[in-house]
């Protein structure tokens, strides 16, 4: 499989001297295209920092982080947005939709950033929402959508720029079981059928079986890695159980 993200010797330090806080220490990690990887760890373990660096939002203190072979550590703040725009789609725990915009307009914003506007943007946004099962909600505002629907709009928005990497932060944390299943199905489909690299930060044990690989972060270091878990015949996703 082709490596989408290659992280080597990556460290992030906040502050300096005696007050320095080491958020990440010498991280080595590779995420491949077509892989759904879960990133787990206790609060403050460094998951978000790692995802922020892989997502080119935060700069590393040292080490290397390559996105499809291109080094991103050391890029200036003016160069990083273009890397994000070209390669990365974000899905947030709190959805981060724009409340003043309809579902379609939320997706159109992502297209606007890519330079796709007007009728083409409207058509493309409608297609994306159709794809996540929200074809009937184009004109709905986030306030009128359920949590699961909001997250699906966020996924449609993340896909608008046709990113090769999806970074999802606690994508199911704010969802009920049924919605969680729908969202994880979508992410899995993106990884396995669309060859995207999907990295999801999570505390949610109910979604472990979706992972091709689970990486645990402990105190800023890679703790252990687990290969895909077998699907167990026990209910692990609330009342509806695991998808068979």
């Amino acid at each position, binding site marked *: 499989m082709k490596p989408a993200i290659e992280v080597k010797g990556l460290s992030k330090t906040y502050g300096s001297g005696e007050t320095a806080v080491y958020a990440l220490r010498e991280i080595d990690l590779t995420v491949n295209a077509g892989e759904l990887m879960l990133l787990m760890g206790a609060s403050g373990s460094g998951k*978000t920092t790692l995802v*922020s660096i892989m997502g080119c*939002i935060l700069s590393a203190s040292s080490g290397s982080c390559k996105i499809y072979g291109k080094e991103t550590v050391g890029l200036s703040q003016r160069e990083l947005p273009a890397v994000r725009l070209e390669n990365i*789609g*974000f899905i947030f725990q709190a959805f981060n939709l724009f409340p*003043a*915009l309809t579902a379609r307009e939320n997706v*159109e914003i992502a297209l606007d950033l890519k330079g796709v506007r007007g009728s083409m943007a409207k058509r493309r946004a409608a297609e994306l929402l159709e794809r996540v099962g929200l074809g009937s909600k184009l004109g709905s505002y986030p306030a009128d959508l359920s949590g699961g629907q909001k997250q699906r709009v966020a996924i449609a928005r993340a896909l608008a720029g046709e990113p090769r990497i999806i970074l999802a932060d606690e994508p199911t*944390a*704010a969802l009920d079981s049924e919605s969680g299943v729908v969202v994880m199905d979508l992410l899995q489909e993106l990884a396995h059928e669309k060859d995207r690299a999907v990295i999801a930060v999570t505390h949610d044990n109910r979604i472990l079986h979706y992972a091709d690989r689970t990486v645990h972060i402990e105190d800023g270091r890679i703790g252990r890695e687990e290969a895909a878990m077998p699907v167990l015949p026990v209910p692990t996703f609330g009342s509806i159980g695991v998808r068979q």
Partner: protein
Amino acid sequence: MASIAIKNLFHEKVRLAVTLTGIVFSIILTAVQLGIFLGFIEASTGIVGQSKADLWVVSRGVTHVEQGVEFNEGKLYKVLADPDVAAAKNHIVSLGAQAKKPDGSDEGVTLVGFDLDGGMGGPWNITQGSVADLEIPDAVMVDELYAENKLGVTKVGQVIEINKRRARVVGFTRGVRIFTSQPAVFTSFKNAQSFLGLNEDQSFFLVMRAREGADIEALRSRLAGELKDVEVLTTGQLVYRQGMYWVFGTGAGITVIVAAVLAIIVGVVIVAQTIYAATVDHIREYGTLKAMGATNGYLYRIILTQAVLSGLIAYVVGIAASLVISRVSLEGTLAIIVNWQLAAALFVLTILMCCTASIVAIRKATSIDPAMVFRG
């Protein structure tokens, strides 16, 4: 991009109302205070500024026309001898007159005596009567704004006393405001001499009009060289001197200036705080956009569009309210003048304040903490 800017602005009506209220309030506050200042300038310089004269001859060292000192009319003939002088007339402005109202009480007045044929230094905004009516001996014209309150006069034909001489009201002006609140009483030059007890050859000022095409500054300079013990000033110079005296020479003027400056500062603070708060309210959305790959320029355009739109809407409402206040004020003795220059300056100030405040707020979005967009 414009879509999100406009929709963000109008999505939450209450927040929009709060934002606009803050900006509108600061516009009105600033407009009213600066309008009072302009009204103050107008009231303190109107007698000179509205004179239609090109040049004034005044006693040396005169700081304001109400302080005129008499000189003899010999100077009038010297002035008239200059080929560039089209007309020159004697003129009187004096605070040294007391009017006795019909009820017997006294009131200081600003007596203005002008040559009825000269077309200079006379009343303006005449609402009843005419300059020709002032030909009648003892005839005077007073301003409606002060007539009843200050002079007890309600209609043409009423008689008052000025410096113990009978004066008959033959007409009214409207809006001839005087800073000292001593109402302007216009009368013929000869009547004014009579009221003030001056000799026939005595005058306080000369007002003159230059021939068309004449170089007024050259004429002023020439006359200044020829006339002894007096100064020759253009109307603009005397207006400036008059304004400076009342603005900086009296505590009242400083008070008005301080109030106007404070109004601007308070206005700037209110607008800045309002726009800043409105921008920061959307900071998470800007953070999300940035995470999605939006450049700082993209965010700047959104935020500035919102700021300019807010400023434009608030300006229209604020300046309309200020004009209404100004209109109402013109019915009284304290004029709040909101002219087009002030309106234009406020427009620029408002847009500038909105943009500056939003740019300060933008810095929060552009220096985004990644944890903010990832946090629930």
